[in-house]
């Protein structure tokens, strides 16, 4: 991929997960009150592994990834907890430290390619600039590299298109251009926020292969955020299901798809049209509306929408906040229902409904 290997003064001597997030909180002060976008989130990603984050829109996935990238600069953002990349703490670290890490060790593919690209500069120039910030190479070499990267992400005749402006690219091409920009410095940590939603399935397959290649070649840690449960099923080793800024469920892909245990995860699976099954008349969305992050429901944030809360004795669903506890084999579930009962419900009531 790149000719340059980013050299870091403090070359990785750290052992353990490459990215470790602990009790992360990102709150925003607004006129209406404090928006608790991320509220006590923990996860870790080893090198060479892929973590998938799925969850409701507005559940804090992008806010989490922006926090890891050190991109919450607005005054109303309050961040606490810990984010360690290669052993180095980022929460509270000086801006230039984070910025250096951002070019050399970590890169992000944004959900929104238009806002990540400047409308007045050509696509090629933007890749060249991004590359030259962290790599001491001539303009010419950087341009050749940019064309090479555009080619790798499947932009047709990259030599002709490198001087186009973002608005002259289709949505999917912009997305690929941004992926080219992110991958141009061979990041050890790649955060991909909805990297393929704007792409058709054949290009999507190509981009997922590219991410897999990157991972094999550079042993990168990858975090992929997506709504597409199919994509995480293909790519992720582990999966975090988020709800209202917190973790509802966390386990291996096999655990999550084989025996999901959180009622919210069941809802997600039930609401998607399944390509691998005959078409149904109507989709089954989770009832109710997403929670306000200003007035998060007491107890379990999912309780106003949960059809199983009545099976939990007492009023615990509305009074106690469930922790994400180990339900066996490292499969963590934040729900007051006892594990055995959840497994039963899955087997008897949910799985047949999905088939």
């Amino acid at each position, binding site marked *: 991929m790149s000719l340059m290997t980013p050299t870091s003064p403090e070359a990785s001597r750290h052992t353990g997960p490459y990215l470790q997030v602990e009790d992360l909180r990102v709150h925003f002060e607004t006129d*209406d009150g404090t*928006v608790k976008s991320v509220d006590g989130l923990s996860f870790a990603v080893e090198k060479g592994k892929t973590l998938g984050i799925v*969850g*409701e*829109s*507005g*559940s804090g996935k*992008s806010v989490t990834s922006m926090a890891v990238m050190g991109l919450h600069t607005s005054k109303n953002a309050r961040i606490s907890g810990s984010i360690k990349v290669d052993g180095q703490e980022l929460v509270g670290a000086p801006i230039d430290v984070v910025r250096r890490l951002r070019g050399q060790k970590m890169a992000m593919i944004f*959900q*929104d390619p*238009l806002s990540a690209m400047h409308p007045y500069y050509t696509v090629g120039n933007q890749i060249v600039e991004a590359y030259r910030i962290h790599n001491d190479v001539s303009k010419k070499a950087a341009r050749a590299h940019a064309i090479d990267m555009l080619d790798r992400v499947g*932009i*047709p*005749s990259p030599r*002709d*298109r490198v*001087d186009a402006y973002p608005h*002259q*690219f*289709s*949505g*999917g*091409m912009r*997305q*690929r251009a941004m992926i080219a920009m992110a991958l141009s410095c061979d990041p050890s940590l790649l955060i991909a926020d*909805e990297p393929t*939603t*704007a792409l*058709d*399935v*054949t*290009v*999507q*397959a190509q981009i*997922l292969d590219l991410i897999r290649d990157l991972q094999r070649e550079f042993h990168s840690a990858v975090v992929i955020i997506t*709504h*597409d449960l*199919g994509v*995480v*099923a*293909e790519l992720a080793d582990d999966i975090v299901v988020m709800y209202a800024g917190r973790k509802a469920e966390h386990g291996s*892909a*096999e655990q999550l*798809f*084989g025996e999901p245990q959180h009622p919210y995860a069941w*809802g*997600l*699976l039930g*609401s*998607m*049209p*399944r*390509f691998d099954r005959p*078409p*149904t008349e109507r*989709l089954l*969305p*989770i009832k109710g*509306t997403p929670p*306000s992050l200003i007035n998060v429901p007491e107890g379990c944030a999912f309780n106003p929408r949960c059809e199983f809360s009545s099976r939990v004795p007492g009023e615990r669903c509305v009074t106690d906040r469930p922790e994400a506890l180990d339900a066996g084999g490292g499969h963590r579930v934040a729900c007051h229902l006892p594990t055995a009962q959840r497994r039963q419900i899955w087997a008897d009531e949910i799985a047949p409904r999905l088939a």
Partner: protein
Amino acid sequence: MNDAAPLLEVEDLVKHFPVKGRGLLQRATQAVQAVDGVSFSVRRGETFSIVGESGCGKSTTARLVTRLLAPTSGTVRLDGKDISTLPERQLRPLRRDVQMIFQDPYSSLNPRHTVGKIVGAPFRLQDVEPEGGRKRAVQELLSLVGLSPEHYNRYPHEFSGGQRQRIGIARTLALKPKLIVADEPVSALDVSIQAQVVNLLEDLQDELGLTYVMIAHDLSVVRHVSDRVAVMYLGKIVEVADRDDLYEHPRHPYTAAMLSAVPVPDTRRRTERERIRLQGDVPSPIDPPPGCRFHTRCWKATEVCRTEEPPLVQIGPAPGHLAACHHPEEK
């Protein structure tokens, strides 16, 4: 007006974007052949979807149909009336009957306007006073799309991607249009909200007799919502059929490749499935390959494919199943 006549008829639609050449040839202008001879018609009350590789011209087609762009040539008839050559000032009634939901929920919302102002804009622009007042109408629209009325005074940047898309949809629905052209309407939404929006679009279709032209990459969603599906490749329609025919008996090799690449939410399927991986050069719409435009990547290509363009013709027993291929799949 004849109810059996199609609501929308597109004939031989072409859109070329001029681009500058490189180096010495800077002034010799070339053109991106974004849409190059597309014909289809959409019946009243149906959902017609367009799928295809990114960059193949789907959004451009959508923008031509809604007259956000003027075509290079070809016609677009809405209710029998040719709108392809209408001058800008005569487009006002069209702007009411035809609405567009955009692919990109970020750039399509004015960051300086409140949600209330954005969703209420169509009322202002078209001078409509809904029953119960504009504010109430807007708040009803907000709850219709799964947002809360309390969002009325907030700004787009305070919302997630999915929430912003719902704002856009609410705005689209304000004037109860005849035709909605939706460019990736649900791709930014999580599956649960997506299901709500899909159900909502279906309900609105039943209630108001809406007609949809839908563009989407998610082939599971497309299968769920569509009556008919067209597949585009490099500016042309290569296959069009009723939904079930297309998904069960794809005739064009590109369609078959696409269907094989759909990711399935089941880890057991990781190893089982056989995906057709497209090899070969991705052609450029500036200089599309001669003959069949897919031949540079098609595993079935023969000599005739490189020289003769296959016409879009009826293939197989299902009525209205058209494909443009010299060697169609037989399944």
